[in-house]
């Protein structure tokens, strides 16, 4: 594995408002990086800068050792010379061309030989299972089919880098789920290096080799999905990914006092924590049940009253009010009635302490 794409201190402003505020990351060949974040976090702007649609104000962008953007030297490689390709949110298939013409376009403008174009188009369409639709016009296709063609169009030119700008968000939920799995397999098989922008965490988890979670024009945390999920670096990351409880804590000498009436001695680890912050507890780590159970050393058990139950399909989510009035959300274990006294249990090592 070698570094393929490098961003160094990228900055971008729109009308004096910073949109990107010092972006640093590098991407290995064959890797898929997901830029994840709420709207307005700068993820699309970053993608557009990588694509070459926009030029950065400061910093440097390199691909395969060659400089693409270096505003300090006044250098900007135009989009069409980067040999990247992009999949757009609204598909952006040209309505006046057939499916085959759309997919062939990139090869055609690069002057590829006719027989080679044909071969590549057929190959690309077969990959996305659209071989039967060669002569259709985009308007005769469903949204999911259109996006498949758009992906084939992007892959047919064998791009150095594939950029995907929320490619699934214009589709309905069921289709999104199917195409997500397919896209994951496709990215893996083709071995293409890709950058994928989304605001949907399940897409990010499924598709990303690494996730860069963005907020306010900065990368808040970058890492493999599991790592970002299990070891969030901030409250923002913890709240954005999955469902969790955040309880304010304060460090007092060798102990940590968590709101909710919990005092923990962390075997000498407490000193390393920030003086105060939030204690994160994932929803799935919290077990709420009506029956008592003998607590072990590593399990913390609290008494509470069940306030709400939500049926999620495969399990029940329960909200339990602790004695001090604080509410924890967790997963119900067995039948739990609203209003009943319950036991709330979670393993001690499920707790994560995050700075404010």
């Amino acid at each position, binding site marked *: 594995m070698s570094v393929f794409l490098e961003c160094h201190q990228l900055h971008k402003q729109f009308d004096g408002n910073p949109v990107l505020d010092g972006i640093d990351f590098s991407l290995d060949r064959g890797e898929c990086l997901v830029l994840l974040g709420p709207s307005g976090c700068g993820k699309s702007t970053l993608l557009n800068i990588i*694509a*070459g*649609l926009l030029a950065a104000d400061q910093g440097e962008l390199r691909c395969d050792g060659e400089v693409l953007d270096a505003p300090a030297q006044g250098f900007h490689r*135009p*989009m*069409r*010379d980067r*040999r*990247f*390709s*992009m999949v*757009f949110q*609204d598909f*952006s298939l*040209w*309505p*006046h*061309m057939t499916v085959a013409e759309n997919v062939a*376009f*990139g090869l055609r*403008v*690069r002057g590829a030989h006719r027989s080679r174009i044909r071969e590549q188009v057929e190959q690309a369409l077969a990959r996305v299972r659209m071989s039967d639709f060669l002569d259709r*016009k*985009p*308007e005769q296709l469903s949204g999911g089919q259109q996006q498949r063609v758009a992906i084939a*169009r992007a892959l047919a*030119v064998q791009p150095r880098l594939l950029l995907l700008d929320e490619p699934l968000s214009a589709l309905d939920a069921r289709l999104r789920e199917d195409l997500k799995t397919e896209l994951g397999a496709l990215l893996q098989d083709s071995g293409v290096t890709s950058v994928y922008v989304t605001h949907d965490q399940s897409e990010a988890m499924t598709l990303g080799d690494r996730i860069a979670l963005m907020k306010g024009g900065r990368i808040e945390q970058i890492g493999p999905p599991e790592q970002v999920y299990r070891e969030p670096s901030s409250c923002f990351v913890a709240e954005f990914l999955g469902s969790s409880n955040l309880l304010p804590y304060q460090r007092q000498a060798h102990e940590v006092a968590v709101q909710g009436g919990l005092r923990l001695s962390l075997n000498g680890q407490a000193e390393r924590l920030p003086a105060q912050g939030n204690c994160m507890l994932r929803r799935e780590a919290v077990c709420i049940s009506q029956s008592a159970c003998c607590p072990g050393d590593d399990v913390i058990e609290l008494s509470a009253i069940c306030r709400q139950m939500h049926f999620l399909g495969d399990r029940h989510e329960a909200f339990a009010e602790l004695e001090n009035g604080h509410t924890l959300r967790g997963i119900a274990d067995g039948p739990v009635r609203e209003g009943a006294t319950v036991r709330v249990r979670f393993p001690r090592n499920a707790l994560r302490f995050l700075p404010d």
Partner: protein
Amino acid sequence: MVRQAFLLQRLPLLLCLGLLLLLTGYPLLILFLQSVFPQILGGSLSGFLEPYQRIAETTDLGAMIGTSLLWAGSVTLISWVIGIPCGFLLARTDIPGKLWLRLSLLFPIMTPPYIAALSYILVMQEGGFADAFLGGLPAGLRAWFFSFWGVSTVMALASFGYVALAVEAALERLPQRFDDAAAQLGAGLSQRLRLILLPLLLPAILNAGLLVFLEAISNFGVPAVLGTRSNLPLLPAEIFYLVTSWPVDLGLATSLSSLLCLMALAGLYGSRWLGQWIGGGRYRPGPARQLPIGRKGHWLGWAFVALLFLLSTIVPYLAMMLSSLAEGWQGGRPALTLAHYRELLSPGSRGASALLTSLGLSLSAATVCILIGGYIAYVGSRNRGLLQQLLDGIATLPRVIPKIVMAVALILAWNAPWIPFDLYNTVWMLLLAYVIIYITDALNYANASLQSMSVNLENAAAVLGANRFTVFTRIVLPQLGPALSAAWLVTFIVCMRELVASILLLPPGTDTTATFIFSQFEQGDISLAMAMASLTILLSTIVLVAFQLRRRSSH
């Protein structure tokens, strides 16, 4: 019972259909029959296809038809060449002052082509303004002007605005993404223009071109005024002379009219087919970036539009106003006077009565048009099926049928031996003609507005017990208001300057503004003609501005 209920439910549709068949279908049918059986109005079927044989045998006529097509084609071509860059400039560049640029395109659209042609004659003729102010025009330029290309250019200057505005509107809908996606895959600017932008714009370009083509091939004013002076015989003028000058040849006139219709229809379907074949495809509109073209680009863009404005508006308007104010020429400069306007406006004069006739006719025609047009559009939009398609088809016919053809058809239809009353040779005939010719504007405006209006609004009223009449007057009409008032305005303005139907259908001794201008100019009283032209344009502009002001204050 079931049958009765079916009829009752279709009553509005059948009513509209019947009305349109009587107004538009009947005259066109008579026209066509007359061209095939030239003696049919006399009750005989003899001479079957004889006029068409004459057309085929007379080489002059064949050549003239060819010239007409070629001429309309070149007008379209010139309009494209100058209109498309204007549209691009407005939609996709960062050129400043777009409001003014757009306004400068509206002026030539608003100017009747025959007035522009008359004014250009005053500029370019021997001893005209060009000679007076520029000290002699090169002979070559004058010869060029009074020729095929000169006449085409004058017509194109009056029509390129349609192309520019249509291209601008289409470009504003066209999402930037289409261009980005192509650039991303390595397409250069010329490849993107050729393979992406142009095919996607083609439907709009063809549509605007069709409008220009139809306008040109059916225009009577410019061929009659400039064509005759340029030795350029064109079809509409020829039909006019066949109908109006002795010996009247109705057979030839109607067969030529039918051919003219056929060309117009061929243009319509041809461009539709071409648009679907090459370009098109539906897409969701999206935003587009504006291309920075730099200071030099701004200057060039402005110079281009300014030159077009100079040629299309300033030169003809200046010539028109100067002539209307001129009283004799002293030392190459005119002495100015308001006498012509005084003469025009003095009560009881021919000019004043022409102005009053035009005003009365235009006011009533515009009002009738929006009432009937609004209702027909409403009925059409709320019905489905074969009858509705038929209604749509007949309603849009006058858009394609050249005005002169419609006028000839109306003469035949209402002067036929079986018409018991005397409609022909009264002013009412002209009102009828205006309504038939211009009802499409009201229909178009109302249709556009109805498409965005939910049927549920009406259903809500119907559920509460309102009957059809109440639903139309209380729910539909108020919402159609803005569209219909815009249609009223357009209809009023075009009626005020309508030339060909007026000149063919007016009873002797009566004038409208346009026929007054036309006849005074031809009889040599140029100042009076130009005074009337200035007055008509001024009046239209006042109405337009008043409407805009009222609309702005009500928002």
